[in-house]
């Protein structure tokens, strides 16, 4: 799940995880940027680098969460592939871990996507996948292609060798038909433009584009679409007991300003909807939550995702 900053990417990722878990499935929600966004959305204390159950989905499914810390992922990687766990301390002290996770180009991303790929592929003793789906709250649209295009990213760093082999494994998971990169957008010019650019970039990199989640859609009474009479509004205001002869007109005038503004925005939203259509991918609409994205709101969004068939 990607999206421009401010579009509600983390919230929608969380709602999608809930929707996918509904009816008894098991979903892992992964966070990669160290922002503790998942904890905030679910109103929990900060998550450690450890998979733990954080929510129960409608109809009894489980959402687990993992906040990936690149340093921990690096130490785990060393242990898993090289049996070098005890080296961790020495490496940390030498600045190797710091180097690998913050400075070495692309390495950080490979570690993070690598950990996620491992969770995707993990099987239990019976050979069944441990998670039915893994949802990643990915970096914003402007950086997501680069982030997911791991082979390209480490190309300069490692043309051959173990890092490259690891990157190729990750690429296999990310580019597989089992993966979908979804976009979250608002019906505003900049996020829509970034979404379209992002879709084009992903396609150019041969990465699988999923759908577009249009977030915070306001539902407006169609009565307000056409031209309307301020005098009629003034009469209504008076009939509703909100003003007398003198100030009903004043109130109506002010309210009319709100309607005009709403119509102008609706017009712009139509333009942006048309623009999104050119991406030729499925689109889903999520309502603006009156009380903000609290826990109840998350379940409401999950429901909207399910009824539209996105999960």
């Amino acid at each position, binding site marked *: 799940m990607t999206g421009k*900053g*401010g*579009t509600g990417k983390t919230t929608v990722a969380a709602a999608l995880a809930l929707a996918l878990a509904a009816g008894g499935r098991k979903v892992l929600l992964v966070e990669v*940027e*160290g*922002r503790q*966004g998942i904890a905030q959305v679910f109103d929990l204390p900060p998550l450690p680098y450890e998979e733990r159950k954080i929510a129960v989905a409608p109809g009894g499914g489980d959402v687990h969460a993992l906040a990936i810390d690149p340093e921990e992922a690096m130490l785990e990687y*060393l242990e898993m592939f*090289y049996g070098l766990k005890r*080296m961790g301390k*020495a*490496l940390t*002290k*030498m*600045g*190797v871990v*710091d*180097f690998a996770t*913050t*400075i*070495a*180009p692309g390495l950080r991303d490979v570690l993070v996507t690598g950990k996620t790929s491992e969770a995707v592929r993990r099987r239990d003793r019976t050979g069944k996948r441990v998670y039915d789906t893994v949802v990643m709250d990915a970096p914003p649209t402007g*950086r997501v292609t*680069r982030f997911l295009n791991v082979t390209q*990213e480490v*190309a*300069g*760093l*490692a043309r*051959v*060798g*173990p*890092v*490259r082999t690891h990157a190729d494994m990750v690429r296999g998971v990310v580019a597989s038909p089992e993966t979908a990169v979804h976009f979250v957008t608002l019906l505003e*010019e*900049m*996020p829509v*433009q*970034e979404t379209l650019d992002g879709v084009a970039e992903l396609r150019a990199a041969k990465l699988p584009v999923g759908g577009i989640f249009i977030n915070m859609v*306001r539902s*407006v*009474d169609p*009565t*307000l679409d056409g031209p309307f009479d301020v005098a009629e509004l003034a009469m*209504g205001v008076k*009939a*509703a*007991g*909100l003003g007398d002869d003198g100030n009903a007109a004043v*109130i109506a005038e*002010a*309210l*009319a300003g*709100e*309607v005009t*503004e709403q119509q*102008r*925005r609706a017009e*712009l939203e139509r333009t942006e909807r048309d623009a999104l259509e050119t991406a030729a991918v499925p689109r889903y609409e999520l309502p603006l939550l009156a009380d*903000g994205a609290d826990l109840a709101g998350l379940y409401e969004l999950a429901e909207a995702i399910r009824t539209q068939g996105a999960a």
Partner: protein
Amino acid sequence: MTSPELDLDGIIDDSGTRIVVCCGSGGVGKTTTAAALGLRAAERGRNVVVLTVDPARRLAQSMGLTSLDNTPRKVAGADGELFAMMLDMKRTFDEIIEAHADPERARQILTNPFYQSLSSSFSGTQEYMAMEKLGQLRRSGEWDLIIVDTPPSRSALDFLDAPERLGRFLDGKLIRLLMAPAKAGGRSAFKILNAGFGLVAGVLTKVLGAQVLKDIQTFVSALDAVFGGFRQRAEQTYKLLQAPGTAFIVVATPERDAMREASYFVERLAEERMPLAGLVINRVHRSPAPDLSAARSTAAAEDLESRGEHELTAAVLRLHAGRMQLAAREHREQEHFASAHPTVPVTQVPAMSQDVHDLDGLREIGELLAKR
């Protein structure tokens, strides 16, 4: 709890203000705020350059920025001295190398595969180069006010930390280890190091592969011979930011996440003793009929609906109630901030129905920013 008012005109009109840094989480209108302030300052007589890292296309066009050529260009149509530039981090890095190395050594560094990925990667380089460019613009003395927006980092604070981190790496133990073979004449010098170093080098070879390690070594030794003071440069820029001529402006929208990030940022700037000017809250929703509350509006709509009268009015009242609820929620977020940070000055910019496309749009935002 109400916040004191942020007097942005007072800041940009003060000839002592030399740098304005706009920071905040992604998607809150940082670049737009930086550009609008730049235009306003230029039109009020300052000689201004706006340094932007990653502007949206339309916004870049509104300032006449069509190419990313890493050089300040004069903005046509501004009634004053306004220049704007987009940061090209790779070119900025290349220029540092070219300025400090003899041509042969510069060539060695610029063609090194490790350098090439380092200089075009996003992990820290962009933040470091933004600060480096800021230092360059400041030293050039060509502009008396530099306005910069911070990179769209995973955390809004990266630009404060990244230079220090890159400096720490380049001056650190790891680098000394990697340089050891070069200093020992290129022979397999890991042998002469102590066991701990040898072990680490062994791990690096195993994980990264011998070729990568060799690229890094060549790069680091070439770079070190050119200038050892990466950390020193980072520290200089850091001090520049702490100086009294700098004003930090935190940008947010009145939503929970953005305001939380803004709070965090305000605290962090205080910790680092960076001069905070105040908070800009963009996209604040207001109503032209603020005296009609959401509750009263909803009740009236329900009344009309139950009577089956004035369908249009009922719909308008519902729209208004929604608007008032949103405004109330936004107001609560701002109050939270004000009670946590009662001394931080704040200014609001109302939500616009359209994005900014041209200088007129920027001018309008500038007016709204300064309005008290």
